[in-house]
């Protein structure tokens, strides 16, 4: 009798365990995964839309508050920034950061900034910036930015920029507004406005762009310190 009772208890225990363990395991598997981001399931990988070129650890950081429809910004980019990229950014001496500061007087500046932000998401900010400034005359009159820019990127790549832009419009606009707020805090009142940070100190350069040779002499001085 005693051995029968023990066998019954053992059997019941085994039955209970064999039911309970799979049930618990199944329940764990059915538990929904925690959401990756509170915003959306397709949140951008670069939520701050950093539009920068070069090594963030470079000894000098150059921030440019710019407006893609601004002729002075284009002039500064063509005559100075391109050379800065070649001579200082690529060798790792300067980290170049673009801050969006679209001016109200330029009706298509925000549209251009949104496209640049979308391109930055795919690591194509530099290419988009060059294309926007190089061909500013082609799009700034009528605002047909996407039509003009599409010619300078592979179709599949440009489609990604457009899709991303349409799906993340609010995040992109927020990023532009963050840059503008930063500029307003620093009393930026014209574009381009340049800030140079080196050895923990940030200096504002005279607004309106700077001749490359003067920038070069200042960078060389900072690098010698």
């Amino acid at each position: 009798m005693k051995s029968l009772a023990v066998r019954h208890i053992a059997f019941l225990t085994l039955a209970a365990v064999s039911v309970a363990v799979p049930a618990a395991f199944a329940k764990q598997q059915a538990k929904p995964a925690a959401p990756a981001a509170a915003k959306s399931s397709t949140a951008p990988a670069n939520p701050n839309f950093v539009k920068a070129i070069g090594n963030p650890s470079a000894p000098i950081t150059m921030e440019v508050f710019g407006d893609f429809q601004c002729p002075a910004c284009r002039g500064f980019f063509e005559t100075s920034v391109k050379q800065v990229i070649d001579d200082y950014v690529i060798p790792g001496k300067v980290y170049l950061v673009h801050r969006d500061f679209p001016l109200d007087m330029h009706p298509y500046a925000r549209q251009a900034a949104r496209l640049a932000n979308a391109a930055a998401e795919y690591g194509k900010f530099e290419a988009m910036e060059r294309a926007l400034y190089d061909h500013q005359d082609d799009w700034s009159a009528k605002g047909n930015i996407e039509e003009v820019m599409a010619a300078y990127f592979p179709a599949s790549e440009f489609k990604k920029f457009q899709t991303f832009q349409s799906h993340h419009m609010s995040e992109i606009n927020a990023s532009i507004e963050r840059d503008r707020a930063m500029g307003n805090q620093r009393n930026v009142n014209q574009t381009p406005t340049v800030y140079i940070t080196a050895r923990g100190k940030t200096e504002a350069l005279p607004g309106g762009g700077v001749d490359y040779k003067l920038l070069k002499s200042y960078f060389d001085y900072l690098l010698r310190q």
Partner: protein
Amino acid sequence: MATTAIPTETTPRTAAWPRALMAIGRVALGLIFLYAAYAKFHFNGGWHFGDYQFFFAMAIDSYNMLPLNAVVLLARFLPILEAVLGALLVSGLGLRWAASITSALLLVFIGAMTRALILHIQIKCGCFGNDEPLTIWTLLRDSSLLVLALAVTIGAFLLKKRQGTVSS
């Protein structure tokens, strides 16, 4: 036996007020120039004795008037010249030279500013640091400084002439 000049009906009496006005004018002008020099060495919250010339060169270059070599030279020496002129004006030493050079300098500044305004070049003045935009008010202010400088210059020459007349 030495004689001293006694003011008579035929010799001019040297009034005190022109000298007082001259002193006020030259000291005011001198302090303004000292401040202009200070603003080129101290900005963005700190002193820039080692790199002031880069920022001032960028401000001068924005006028698009001079070749780069001249810009660099001017950027290095003009703040020092302003400080020296300011000190001379305040102290009254070498007044005719200091006031003349100050007047000439202001004339050049006003010419450059006028040209920039006519060409609608949107730049910073560079007069008292990097932040002041160039406007018609900047021009009017510097024009009034030129009037003061010319008055001090003319006054300095007249006073020297009068001193020469009294002592002869």
